[in-house]
């Protein structure tokens, strides 16, 4: 990439996230007040209490061995985490700096029941509880810092335990017994004497109330052990006795926590309602009164399914204590609220899990739209009958432009009151990125600044194999831009279609559509209808076709779809046609790629907006090697266990319209990675060679030969050609581990394509295709040198200059998205993972822009000096001639 040090931050930005918060603890003892959080993404981080920024962060393994089971922090102590899933690792961290202090492993022998383990820290000891329902509890105590086990595991006989029991440290509470005869039992697991508190459940309910016997713990870090029964009654355990509270749970879905505030012990409840929004109440237990400052209920704060993570009571100079409430929402966003309901900060943590992204063009400004419509031939012919009318119109638009220019010059001194509306800039570099996250939240993000312009949460959207289509770009005023997202309904698994305007985030067109069948495949029609909208073709599991909008059904012809079964490796193709009344899908081909037991690892197709610029490559002897350009080509990578060779990877290039296999190759003793890219006639995929224990990239290029198969200008048809192209193949060693792969893409495909790779270390690399070109010759001599091919080396060079994100690492890169911009030389790149990183890439350097450090000063000085020199010499020479003439 080779940027200069002074270009840092000019074209790129990075945003760091931690993931959905699982445990949170307030740290108010250190100088910088912070919140220590442990998240579902296996991240341990410290957030600044005032601003919510990440102060330090530790990312654990993404597999189950990095799952955080416990986060413990008590004031003055160190932060303790228990991570893993048998075997476990206990680690201690310094809360200010985040540096590791100690770590030791725990291994549990009983692997089947290990997932039922419960952990907590008490008096400098780590207590591990393993229940065996119906018989006993195994309790082990470890020294927190060293891990030494004091004696053996103690077994407490408890016949009354079942899987509905909860842990409210140090008590283990259960409801047992038969319906109508429930008993509430609890046991202090750590005390030496075995004392069971046992009371019938009906004591805590009034007559006539239905008792179901569900136990739920209090959320957050409570100062006293307590629990909620049946989402109604709240009980605390004090002095080995159950103590019911006078106040009941305000709402069935409310989450409650109990803290020791300055004014006394306090119960805080929070819940959200569709109509009323978020509500928070606080109740002082000692005085039995409600604390009115905490009470709030506001529809403007939209937190779906709010969950309390913790409540902090801060001692301020004034008499009134201040409270900070940390809330988690079902959309993975975390908010810190002040008492009274004001939001201090919020973090959109669902952006740590992005599944799809799409770059959308902005609409042109009004004046530009007027200009462009002038050149639109059809409209011009309709409206303007004579040349004079067109001329008058031209004058009019030019006057308007002059007017805006003068206004801009005048307005530069004044402060801009209104924010500039979103319009396309000159080079079309300013776009909107529509992001879909795993939890079902959709964002519209400005790509230059990274700020979120709009967001929409839909809990019913299941983003398992979500697809996003831009059905209409913003280039056709007065029609709005139109983006459709197709996913599954969370509960039924049927199709779920959301259509919205990506510039503003509002629902348009079909809005939210719930289908009643499951979908097999979705495609966009290539022709536009009268409103310049591409129709959406949905193929459902009974092989019937739905077209949205329905009026576009007669436009369907020459459309082919394929459906691939991931688990078996079978693929089949359909041809769609409108037969006068409806669109029919006829099955035309089926393949059984990979053989028995194969599994599809990944399929890479070409992007919809891709273009091919040149028909072939010029060789050294001035002949042309014509490329095999098939827009219907798909690269399918399959993996299969094999008895003789441990694993076999098969890569097949298939024409998806006629189902013909164009090229195929196999690798023995290799496992495929789900990373494959495909653009123009170049295909590349990654696999791990088990034999040599290294990652390798295999590339294929398809060529027709030295003569074209079809005369130039004929349309390509998959059903027309039966010849197989010649394939150039090669494999290279990748000296790093990759987690994401993409090709750069530009509008007219004149610039070279570079491979964008996301490494497991968090660096993003850009590698020219020339390094993985399969035609790299063994020796450099004569003809190959003239063509510009680099001599063959088995290992790919990954120098530090090729990194896009210099020292701003992106943790756990999951995908890289590249989009073309208005400039031919530049491609816009977004890398997603735990963090987001956006930058601009110029694979052939910025050949269509003046370079950044263009020496305006030097050139103007030299020019001025030359002009001065010319005129002065002229003057002096004439004077000299005059003098000589007088001699």
């Amino acid at each position: 990439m080779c940027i200069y040090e002074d270009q840092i931050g000019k074209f790129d930005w990075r945003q760091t996230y931690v993931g959905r918060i699982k445990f949170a603890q307030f740290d108010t003892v250190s100088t910088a007040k912070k919140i220590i959080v442990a998240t579902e993404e296996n991240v341990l981080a410290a957030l600044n209490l005032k601003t919510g920024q990440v102060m330090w962060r530790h990312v654990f393994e993404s597999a189950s061995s990095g799952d955080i089971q416990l986060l413990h922090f008590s004031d003055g102590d160190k932060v303790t985490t228990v991570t893993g899933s048998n075997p476990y690792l206990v680690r201690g961290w310094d809360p200010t700096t985040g540096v590791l202090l100690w770590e030791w492993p725990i291994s549990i022998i009983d692997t089947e029941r290990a997932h039922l383990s419960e952990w907590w820290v008490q008096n400098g000891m780590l207590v591990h509880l393993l229940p065996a329902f119906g018989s006993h509890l195994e309790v082990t105590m470890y020294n927190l810092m060293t891990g030494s086990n004091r004696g053996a595991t103690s077994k407490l006989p408890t016949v009354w335990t079942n899987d509905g029991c909860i842990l409210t440290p140090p008590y283990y509470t259960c409801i047992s017994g038969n319906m109508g005869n429930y008993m509430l039992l609890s046991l202090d697991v750590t005390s030496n004497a075995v004392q069971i508190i046992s009371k019938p459940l009906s004591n805590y309910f009034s007559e006539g109330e239905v008792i179901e016997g569900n136990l739920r713990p209090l959320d957050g870090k409570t100062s006293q052990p307590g629990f909620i029964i049946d989402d109604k009654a709240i009980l605390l355990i004090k002095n080995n006795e159950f103590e019911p509270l006078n106040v009941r749970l305000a709402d069935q879905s409310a989450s409650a926590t109990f803290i020791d505030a300055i004014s006394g012990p306090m119960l805080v409840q929070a819940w959200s309602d569709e109509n009323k929004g978020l509500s928070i109440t606080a109740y002082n237990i000692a005085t039995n009164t409600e604390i009115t400052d905490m009470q709030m209920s506001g529809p403007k704060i939209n937190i779906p399914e709010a969950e309390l993570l913790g409540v902090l009571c801060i001692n301020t100079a004034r008499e009134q204590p201040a409270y900070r409430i940390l809330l988690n929402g079902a959309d993975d966003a975390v908010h810190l609220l002040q008492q009274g309901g004001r939001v201090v900060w919020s973090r959109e943590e669902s952006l740590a899990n992005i599944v799809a992204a799409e770059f959308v063009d902005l609409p042109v400004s009004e004046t530009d739209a007027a200009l462009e419509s002038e050149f639109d031939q059809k409209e011009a012919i309709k409206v303007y009958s004579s040349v004079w009318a067109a001329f008058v119109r031209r004058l009019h638009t030019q006057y308007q432009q002059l007017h805006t220019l003068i206004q801009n010059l005048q307005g530069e001194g004044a402060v801009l009151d209104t924010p500039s509306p979103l319009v396309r800039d000159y080079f079309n570099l300013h776009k909107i990125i529509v992001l879909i996250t795993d939890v079902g939240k959709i964002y519209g993000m400005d790509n230059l600044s990274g700020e979120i312009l709009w967001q929409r949460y839909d809990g019913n959207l299941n983003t398992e194999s979500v697809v996003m289509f831009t059905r209409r770009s913003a280039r056709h005023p007065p029609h709005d831009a139109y983006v459709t997202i197709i996913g599954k309904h969370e509960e039924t698994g049927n199709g779920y279609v959301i259509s919205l305007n990506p510039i503003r985030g509002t629902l348009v067109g079909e809005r939210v559509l719930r289908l009643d069948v499951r979908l097999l495949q979705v495609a966009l029609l290539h022709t536009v209808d009268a409103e310049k909208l591409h129709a959406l073709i949905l193929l459902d599991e009974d092989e019937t076709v739905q077209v949205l909008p329905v009026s576009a059904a007669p436009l369907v012809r020459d459309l082919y779809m394929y459906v691939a079964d991931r688990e078996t490796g079978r693929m089949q193709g359909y041809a769609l046609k409108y037969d006068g009344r409806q669109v029919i899908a006829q099955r035309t081909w089926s393949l059984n790629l990979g053989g028995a037991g194969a599994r599809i690892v990944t399929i890479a197709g070409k992007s919809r907006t891709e273009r091919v610029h040149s028909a072939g490559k010029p060789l050294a002897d001035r002949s042309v090697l014509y490329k095999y350009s098939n827009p219907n080509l798909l690269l399918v990578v399959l993996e299969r266990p094999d008895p003789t060779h441990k694993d076999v990877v098969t890569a097949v290039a298939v024409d998806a319209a006629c189902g013909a296999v164009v090229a195929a190759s196999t690798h023995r003793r290799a496992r495929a990675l789900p990373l494959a890219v495909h653009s123009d006639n170049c295909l590349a995929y990654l696999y791990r060679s088990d034999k040599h224990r290294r990652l390798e990239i295999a590339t294929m290029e398809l060529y027709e030969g030295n003569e074209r198969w079809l005369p130039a200008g004929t349309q390509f048809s998959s059903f027309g050609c039966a010849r197989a192209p010649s394939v150039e193949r090669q494999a290279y060693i990748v000296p790093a581990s990759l987690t994401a792969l993409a090709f750069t893409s530009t509008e007219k495909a004149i610039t070279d394509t570079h491979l964008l790779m996301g490494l497991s270390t968090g660096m993003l690399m850009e590698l020219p295709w020339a390094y993985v070109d399969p035609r790299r010759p063994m020796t450099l001599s004569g003809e190959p040198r003239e063509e510009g091919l680099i001599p063959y080396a088995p290992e790919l060079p990954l120098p530090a200059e090729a990194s896009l994100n210099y020292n701003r690492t992106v943790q756990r890169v999951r995908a890289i998205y590249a989009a073309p911009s208005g400039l031919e030389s530049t491609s816009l790149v977004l890398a997603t993972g735990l963090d987001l990183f956006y930058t601009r890439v110029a694979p052939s350097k910025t050949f269509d822009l003046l370079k950044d450090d263009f020496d305006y000063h030097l050139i103007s000085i030299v020019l001025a000096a030359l002009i001065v020199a010319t005129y002065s010499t002229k003057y002096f020479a004439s004077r000299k001639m005059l003098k000589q003439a007088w001699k």
Partner: protein
Amino acid sequence: MHLMFIFLTIFFHYVACLDYDGWMNIKVDHSLNCASEKYCKRGTITLKSIRAGTAIIDQIPFNRKHIKELQELAELDGFYTIRTLVSTAEGKEIEFLSSVKAKGLLENGLSDIISAWVLPSGEVIAVTFQVMNSTQTNALNLDSEYPINSDFYLRHVDQAPVPDTASYIQKLEREREAREKGELKDNRSFLAKYWMYIVPIAVFVMISGAGNPEGAAQPSR
């Protein structure tokens, strides 16, 4: 002698690295002129040995009804679909579907190309029917019977190349040895090395020499 023969066959079997060789039987069905079922028989293709690749194709000729149906399909720009059932010595029958445009088949005079792709383990991954892109339109006489010309190609899925580390290491070693043995001698003549600098200097001298003697000669007279 026998031992030599046995040894050679086993040796070559291993060297060729084709894991499996056996027979293959492909039943070809199509959907033209089928009375009640969806597909009816069109022919069979048998191969004795996958490695050898020679196939015996046996197909029914197309009669009037077949061609009439094909023409109807061609008018609607429809597809002529062929179903193949592949059975190998390993066992199960696998079904494949493939289609060509009915118009294309008629234009080619009922000649098509059948390609079957085989993995090194002997399993078939695809059986595809295609037609060549020809421009001649043969008007088919409805009365007579037309045999179908099919060309069968068996394509093997090859092993992909592995990164060639051996020759690269050899090249590095050779370069290292050459560097240790002696420097690359630049033993062209002095003139050949520095002619680029000598010529402009000579040109300058001559110009100044031609200019100045004249200039010197004139004032001196």
